[in-house]
């Protein structure tokens, strides 16, 4: 197949970027989208030109590294599929494809298609965990978890942290990402002690990072390569509301004598 690519090139965080056009003559339908970029880069290097920088690693749709806006859709046209798992058979001979980085204020561009997603880690740092120091855990089967709860937790825990939800959202909101973690932990008995504290601190961090608010466009769940549902966002909002209504000041610390 012959494919024409218009790829966003930007030398560094402060540099101006623009779309460059490349034509590839022999694209196999069995290639993955990233393998097509490998071929492009090998051609560029052979011609002594700077190859396109892009994020990728596992190429199995699980590490969440890859991140390309393909013809205006995060991860491209195939539902529930990360860029690395998209294959060229989804396109046809002669197609023109526009490839851009994730665009969001909280995801500054580092180079070409590579963006800085560390804001997502900081949302997790704000409370996306169960405080369980190593050692002293009780026997795993002492905590009974009904199968439907374990399944719902797993549905939400499937998030790969790629940031497609942010890129797809007109408000550049990280609500689906944040809600997925809140939902995962909130479905489990182990997650209850910190449940309401967690939702407050994580949502606050999302605001601090400069992500937008959720106005329920629903673009995030369309773009999500793991098909995480915006029901998680309703759950987060319910927990948030309850948490703000019932929040009490932290008790004053009394020091031991």
């Amino acid at each position: 197949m012959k494919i024409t690519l218009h790829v966003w090139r930007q030398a560094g965080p402060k540099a101006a970027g623009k779309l460059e056009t490349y034509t590839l003559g022999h694209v196999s339908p069995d290639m993955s989208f990233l393998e097509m970029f490998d071929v492009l880069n090998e051609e560029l290097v052979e011609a002594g030109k700077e190859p396109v920088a892009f994020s990728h690693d596992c190429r199995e749709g699980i590490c969440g590294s890859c991140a390309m806006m393909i013809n205006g859709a995060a991860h491209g046209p195939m539902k529930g599929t990360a860029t690395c798992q998209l294959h060229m058979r989804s396109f046809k001979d002669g197609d023109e494809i526009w490839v851009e980085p994730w665009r969001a204020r909280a995801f500054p561009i580092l180079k070409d298609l590579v963006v800085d997603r560390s804001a997502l880690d900081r949302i997790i740092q704000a409370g996306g965990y169960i405080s369980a120091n190593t050692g002293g855990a009780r026997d795993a089967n002492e905590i009974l978890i009904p199968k439907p709860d374990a399944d719902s937790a797993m549905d939400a825990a499937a998030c790969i942290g790629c940031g497609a939800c942010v890129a797809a959202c007109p408000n550049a909101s990280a609500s689906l990402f944040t809600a997925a973690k809140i939902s995962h932990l909130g479905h489990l008995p182990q997650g209850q002690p910190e449940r309401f504290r967690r939702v407050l601190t994580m949502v606050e961090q999302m605001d601090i990072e400069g992500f937008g608010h959720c106005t329920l466009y629903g673009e995030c769940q369309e773009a999500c390569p793991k098909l995480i549902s915006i029901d998680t966002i309703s759950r987060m909002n319910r927990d948030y509301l309850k948490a703000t209504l019932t929040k009490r000041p932290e008790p004053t610390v009394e020091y031991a004598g």
Partner: protein
Amino acid sequence: MELNSKVPAGPLAGKWDKHKFDVKLVNPANKRKYEVIVVGAGLAGASAAATLSELGYRVKCFVYHDSPRRAHSIAAQGGINAAKNYQNDGDSIHRLFYDTIKGGDFRAREANVYRLAQNSVSIIDQAVAQGVPFAREYGGLLSNRSFGGAQVSRTFYARGQTGQQLLLGAYAQLEKEIARGGVEMFNQYEMLDLVVVDGHARGIVARNLVTGAIETYAAHAVLLATGGYGNVFYLSTNAKHSNATAIWRAYKRGAAFGNPCYTQIHPTCIPVSGDHQSKLTLMSESLRNDGRVWVPKKQGDKRAPGQIPEDERDYYLERRYPSFGNLAPRDISSRSAKYVCDEGRGVGDTGLGVYLDFSDAIKRLGKKTIAERYGNLFEMYQRITDEDPYEVPMRIYPAVHYTMGGLWVDYNLMSTVPGCFVLGEANFSDHGANRLGASALMQGLSDGYFVIPYTIGDYLAGLKPQPVDAAAPEFRAAADETRARLQKLLSIKGKRTPTSFHRQLGKIMWDKCGMARNRAGLAEAITEIRALREEFWTNVNVIGEVGSLSQQLEIAARVADFIELGELMCRDALHREESCGGHFREEYQTEDGEALRNDDAFAYVAAWEYAGDQAEPRLHKEPLEYENVKLSTRSYK
């Protein structure tokens, strides 16, 4: 160089408890005076970094990813073993220990493996406490599945994403410690050298992959949890960035390399589709629970699988290994697939593939149950191949998956460079010559959560709690050497891309140091790799600069190290004149084609010591003594 395994004396079952009592402790108030560098944040690195920080040590953690959550442990699919015996099917710590020793073809250290089996039980408890959503039964209890090389159901799983969920559990604990201030995280930093001062590991040289800055960091101990080196083969199931640079640099600074030739070729991967192929995708071994492996009985049978009647199919694993059937261990399953393809009975366009057929299981259990068990794997398969495994059998072929070899470590996980510890796949310690399925996650977490937190204290307690001198000349010298090496790569300006060299190396390794090896082939491979190295350093074309984000430079530096490591692997494979586990030497096999070990001459760990770029490495041997199991020929028949 002296190899002292430091395995404690006493009965096997009591060694670890005794050792935990015997090791020195660091007093709680002093722990914050010790700094520890952890390189890598997969299961081993993240669990170690989080746990050491919880104990009070000051931790710096380095990863080349943009987030520690992206480490390649995330891609592990099938599960994690633990000797819980929740199924009441006869499992025990001793049985997990025995299965692992036997699966490793009697080439692992008994005491390490026993400790691994003991710790397996706590890992599941810990993971559940962190909120890892393992599969459950309707009554709320944990669910188990079976895996290759075992006759009990002891594998815990979270759909086909067990590695992801366990990693996210460890990652969450790591983020908790970062928020608390106990861990300083360095994302997008690649370790390029180990700094050794007065014979002790005292820091690292790392490159900031975004700005390109070469920086040095000092600490009282350095933990390498940087994964395996399967990408020597170019095509493997490893992630694209997985590389050997950290352990290879440590090797060049004096850490012995243990059993480099032990490579695991995983039997169930999606076959290669063309020259553009950049990596191979694993289909979890758990599929062999319900899938049946077969090829046509006739050579060159090009009929569609549905057209081939039952009596013209050869279910070769069930035929040759009736008691384990489709769940024979990985090395045996892979080699069997190679044999039937070598006989011209392989399927698919390339003839390099065998069927993994679910039609019987779908008939027996229904499509819904199969979808629940393997839905995401089936989807992944369909996405890659454009074929629906509910309708037509999967086509699979073996691919490089895991490296049992790695830096040599003692019972405390310390390498031959004092202060440099090695965890997870990066070390050689627990799997012998072949790793059983669902044991990699177990080992990574055992090392990180439950071994290193004890054993590192024994080392640190012997040091004064004073800051490490980061201005020691060794730091600057190592940084200068690193900078010069990268500049050299950029200055060659030859005609070939770094990736083209990597592909060529991979082809040599796959053909001559892959599933089956022989003396002549290995000797040729060494000559070819030497020539390749020569050409690489005179004809590679690397575009980029040291001082900025340059992905081609990252690739080139890794390929340079892979080439050297490839040679060492061939050397090790050549010297080991026996077949064991993943190392199959064609000269040493039984009449029916099974691996033929030579326990009299080769029941040892081969630990190679670097002796200079042009010199041959020195071989040291750690004898393997078996006091609790009887060395026997593995039989899965």
